C-alpha cells in the first residue's frame, strides 16, 4: 500500500497541518511531518473533510445502464468528494431480493471508487402490496439496513406500520418517499402560482406533509426508526420539528436542488427541472435551509437521478423526473451555507454515515481513523458543463452556472480515487 503525505491542509476550520495516510488509515496528523516513502500531495489552500456520504443515489444498474452504471455513478461520486453512496432500490429488476442487492454491492466493490451500500426495496417490485424479504437482504453480503420504495410511497398505512416494526429485528430503517399517491395523480410540478400559470397539474405540499405526519405517528407508536427522503416543504419541516421535540426516532434529508432552485425554473418547460418531489417556492427553500442549519433536517442527500437524453429532451409531461447531483452537491452546499465546514461535514458525512450505519465513514481525519476523506479547494469557482460530467447522463439543472468549490482529491481507505480533480480510474 502506498503512503500519502498531504501537506498544508486545513482539517475543517483548523490551522494548516500535514496528514500522513498509510495502510488505509490516517497515520499521523501534525505540522512538518516527513515520510520518505510517501507521495506528497501539496494541499496548500485546501480543506480536508471526512469523505462525503450520500444516503440517496440512483445508480440505475441493473436495468438502465445507458443512463448510469455502478461504475460511472461511483466515479461521479468520487469526483464529488464522496466515499460512500447508498444505492436506491428502483432498478430493473428491483433490488427486492438478496440476489439483486448482492449484485449491486459486488459491482460497487469491483468499481472500487466509493463504497456502494445497496438499499433494499420495502415491498416486492415496489408495488406497495407485500413486504420484500427484508431479513434476507439484511443477512446478505450487502448487509442492507436501509429499506426504501423510493420513487413510490409506501402508502398503505398497515404495510408501513409492519415494515417499520419488522426491521427493528436488525436495526433497520425505513426511508420513506413521502407522497400521498391520490393527491398527486398526474402531478407535474409544485401546486401553486406557477403551476396555475403553466397549466401543469399540481403536486400539492400537503401530499408530502400528510404522509410525514402519519409516518412519524406510526414510528412513534411502534418505536421504530423512520427516515424521510427529500423533504421539500416548509410544512414538512414543522411536522418534523414537532416529532423530534417529542422524541420520535425520525431523521430527514434535503436535496441540494431543493436548497437552491424554485418552481419558477419550470417556466422554461425544460424538463431538466422536473423532479419528484418538485421544486417548491422561495419560502420553502428558506425554511429548508433554516431547518438544515438547525438540525431539524439531518442531512443533505443528492437524490442523484440520471436519465438518458431522450427521457428529458421532450415535452415536460412525458419526461422522467430527476436530476444529477453527485458532482455538484458540495458546491451547492458551499453556495448556500458558505465555508461552514463543521456544518457541511456533519450534514454531508457524519450524520448520513450514522443513519446508514456505515462504520469507517463520516469520521473526521485523526490518527487511527480510516482514511476516507476529501480535499476541497474552497476558493475555486467552476462553470458546470454537462458534457464534462463523469455521469453517463447529462441532466444537471446547473448547466452553465458558476459554482464555488472544487474537489481536488478523494481518498477511499487511503487510496486516492480522485487526484488533481481527476478520477484515478
Amino acid at each position, binding site marked *: 500500500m502506498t503512503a500519502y503525505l498531504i501537506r498544508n491542509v486545513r482539517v475543517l476550520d483548523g490551522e494548516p497541518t500535514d496528514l500522513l495516510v498509510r495502510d488505509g488509515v490516517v497515520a499521523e496528523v501534525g505540522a512538518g511531518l516527513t515520510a520518505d516513502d510517501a507521495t506528497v500531495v501539496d494541499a496548500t489552500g485546501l480543506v480536508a473533510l471526512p469523505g462525503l456520504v450520500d444516503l440517496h443515489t440512483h445508480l440505475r444498474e441493473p436495468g438502465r445502464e445507458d443512463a448510469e452504471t455502478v461504475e460511472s455513478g461511483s466515479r461521479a461520486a468520487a469526483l464529488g468528494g464522496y466515499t460512500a453512496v447508498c444505492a436506491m432500490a428502483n432498478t430493473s429488476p428491483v433490488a427486492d431480493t438478496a440476489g439483486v442487492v448482492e449484485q449491486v454491492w459486488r459491482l460497487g466493490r469491483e468499481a472500487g471508487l466509493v463504497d456502494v451500500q445497496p438499499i433494499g426495496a420495502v415491498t416486492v417490485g415496489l408495488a406497495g402490496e407485500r413486504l420484500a424479504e427484508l431479513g434476507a437482504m439484511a443477512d446478505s453480503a450487502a448487509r442492507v439496513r436501509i429499506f426504501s420504495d423510493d420513487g413510490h410511497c409506501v402508502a398503505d398505512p398497515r404495510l408501513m406500520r409492519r415494515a417499520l416494526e419488522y426491521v427493528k429485528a436488525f436495526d433497520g430503517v425505513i426511508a420513506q418517499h413521502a407522497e400521498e399517491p391520490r393527491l398527486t395523480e398526474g402531478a*407535474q410540478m409544485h*401546486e*401553486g*402560482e*406557477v*403551476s*396555475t*400559470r*403553466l*397549466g*401543469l*397539474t*399540481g403536486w400539492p405540499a400537503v401530499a408530502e406533509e400528510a404522509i410525514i405526519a402519519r409516518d412519524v405517528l406510526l414510528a412513534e407508536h411502534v418505536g421504530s426508526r423512520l427516515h424521510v427522503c427529500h423533504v421539500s416543504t416548509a410544512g414538512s419541516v414543522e411536522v418534523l420539528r414537532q416529532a423530534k421535540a417529542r422524541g420520535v426516532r425520525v431523521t430527514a434529508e434535503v436535496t441540494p436542488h431543493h436548497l437552491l432552485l424554485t418552481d419558477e425554473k419550470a417556466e*422554461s*418547460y*425544460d424538463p431538466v427541472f422536473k423532479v419528484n418531489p418538485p421544486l417548491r417556492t422561495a419560502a420553502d427553500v428558506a425554511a429548508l435551509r433554516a431547518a438544515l442549519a438547525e438540525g431539524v433536517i439531518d442531512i443533505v442527500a443528492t437524490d442523484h437521478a440520471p436519465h438518458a437524453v*431522450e427521457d428529458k*429532451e*421532450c*415535452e*415536460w*409531461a*412525458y419526461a422522467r423526473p430527476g436530476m444529477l447531483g453527485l458532482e455538484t452537491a458540495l458546491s451547492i452546499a458551499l453556495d448556500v451555507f458558505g465555508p461552514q465546514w463543521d456544518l457541511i461535514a456533519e450534514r454531508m458525512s457524519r450524520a448520513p454515515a450514522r443513519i446508514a450505519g456505515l462504520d469507517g465513514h463520516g469520521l473526521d481525519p485523526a490518527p487511527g481513523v480510516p482514511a476516507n476523506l476529501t480535499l476541497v479547494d474552497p476558493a475555486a469557482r467552476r462553470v458546470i458543463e454537462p458534457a464534462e460530467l463523469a455521469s453517463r447522463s447529462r441532466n444537471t439543472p446547473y448547466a452553465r452556472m458558476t459554482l464555488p468549490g472544487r474537489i481536488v482529491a478523494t481518498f477511499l481507505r487511503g487510496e486516492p480515487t480522485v487526484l488533481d480533480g481527476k478520477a484515478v480510474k
Partner: protein
Amino acid sequence: MIRHLLSGADLDADTATLVLDTAAEMATVAGREVKKLPALRGRTVVNLFYEDSTRTRISFEAAAKRLSADVINFSAKGSSVAKGESLKDTALTLQAMGADAVVIRHPASGAPHRLADWVDGSVVNAGDGTHEHPTQALLDAYTMRSRLGRLAGLHVAIVGDVLHSRVARSNVLLLSTLGAKVTLVGPPTLIPVDIASALAPGIDVSYDLDAVAPGVDVVMMLRVQRERMSDSYFPSAREYARRYGLDGPRLRRLPEHAIVMHPGPMNRGMEITPEVADSPRSTIVEQVANGVSVRMAVLYLLLGGNNR
C-alpha cells in the same frame, strides 16, 4: 412584431390591438368574390396537430390559404408520430423542410415552447394541454369588440372548468391587458389555486353565477367534460348544470346588451342549454368566422407580411 405566439402574455396592448385591427382588414377579404391575398405567397405554414381538432385546424388552414401560403397538414395520426418519433425529431424534420411557421396543437402543456427551441420559424400555439390557446383569446376579443364596440371597461365572466381550460388562461391574460374586467366563475374545485397572482392581479373569482350575472357585459361559457364527475370535481352533471349552466331564465337575468360566448365544442344541456346557444345573444357561430380573420392577422404579422 413578436416571433412566436405561445401565450396571451406575449401580446402587449399595442400588439394585441394591431392584431385585432389587422384582423378587421382581413375580414373584408372574406366578403370578396376572390377570398385571397398574395401576402404569404411562397411561404410555408405547417399545421402540426397532435390532438384531433377539426375546427381549429381548418380555421388555421383557411387563414393560411387565404394569404396564399403553402399549407402542410401534419397530423399525429397516420404519421411517424404514431411510430414514436419525438417532438424534437419532428421539429428537425419540419425545419429541414423549410417551414416558415408551425402551428401546433398538443395535449402536453408547454409543447409549443419546446418546439420554439428547436425550429427557426415562427411557432403559433393552437392549444397546448391545459395551458393556453392565444388565438382563441384573440378571436374572442375580436368578437367582443365587434359586438360591443370596445374592450376597455367591459366586464367579462368566464364560467366553468377554468382549471383545465387553456381558453380561460389565454383570455384572462389578453382581456386584462386590453383593459377588460374579468371574473372567473365556477365551483371551487375547478378554479386553480392562486389564479389571480398567477395570471392577472385585477381579476375576481366567484362561486355564484347568479350573483355575477346581472353586472356583466359578456358571459363566456367553458366546455365542461362530464368525465370530471368521476374525479369528484362536482357530484353530477345535473347539479353542475343547475349551479353553473346557462339556461333561459339565467339568460334573461343578464343585462339586455350582454352577449353569450362559447369556444366550442359545446356540451348542450351541460354548461349551456340549446335555447341559449341558439339565441341571438349567442356569438358562437360568429366566433368561428372571426377565427379565420384573426388567424390570418396572426400569420401575416408573425411572418413579416407587412415588412417584406
